[in-house]
């Protein structure tokens, strides 16, 4: 049985409760991986007041769902949860989470990393930093593109390198 949850919301969430919901009542799942992205209190050494996340409604959901489908086709997953917030988020609060469940850890770890790398570079969200010096848009990082590009190869080919 495959359980998929994709949610976009402005309010915070409880990552531990979300992971518990993914595995509750299941005895076939042997591994659950949860990644939670949290708002830092400083960017490049400068304290920040908040992050504001803008998103493209409709496309953001569709893009996440497409990548969840892709992850399910690559690994034997038993559950996936992706939650991404939008709006104003203060330091210490959650920004987003990815949880994956499988019978063994390899698939759960790999699928969680795959989803994170793709969400960073393909899901239509934009972060703006609010600080004393004003509001500035976060610039995309080349390292994130490189991290996403490694999944463009067919599954299994990573081990050959």
């Amino acid at each position: 049985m495959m359980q998929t949850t994709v949610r976009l919301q402005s309010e915070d969430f409880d990552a531990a409760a979300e992971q518990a919901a993914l595995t509750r009542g299941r005895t076939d799942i042997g591994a659950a991986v949860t990644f939670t992205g949290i708002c830092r209190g400083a960017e490049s050494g400068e304290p920040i007041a908040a992050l504001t996340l803008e998103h493209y409604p409709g496309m953001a959901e569709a893009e996440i769902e497409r990548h969840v489908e892709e992850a399910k086709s690559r690994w034997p997953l038993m559950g996936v949860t992706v939650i991404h917030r939008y709006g104003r988020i203060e330091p210490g609060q959650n920004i987003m989470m990815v949880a994956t469940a499988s019978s063994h850890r390899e698939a759960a770890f790999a699928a969680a990393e795959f989803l994170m790398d793709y969400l960073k570079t393909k899901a239509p969200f934009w972060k703006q930093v609010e600080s004393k010096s004003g509001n500035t848009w976060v610039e995309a990082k080349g390292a994130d593109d490189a991290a996403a590009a490694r999944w463009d190869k067919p599954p299994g080919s990573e081990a050959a390198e």
Partner: protein
Amino acid sequence: MKLLYFAWVRERVGKAEEELAPPADVKTVADLMRWLGGRGEEYAHAFEQAKSIRAAIDKRHVRPDTVITGAREIAFFPPMTGG
């Protein structure tokens, strides 16, 4: 067609969305960015770094050489920074 702008593209254009009917010689996403860039100072500022602007047609990522024929909704935005 409906045009949508996000993040700093939206701020520079000064609006989040609008309905526009580009002329027939505007065939691709890159053509559309050039045409928009000629619509006034705000647009010129928004589209001056066309290489760093991404586009989506009907909520799917597309490349600059994608033909826009039949598009209902085209969005322009900076590289994404979610996650």
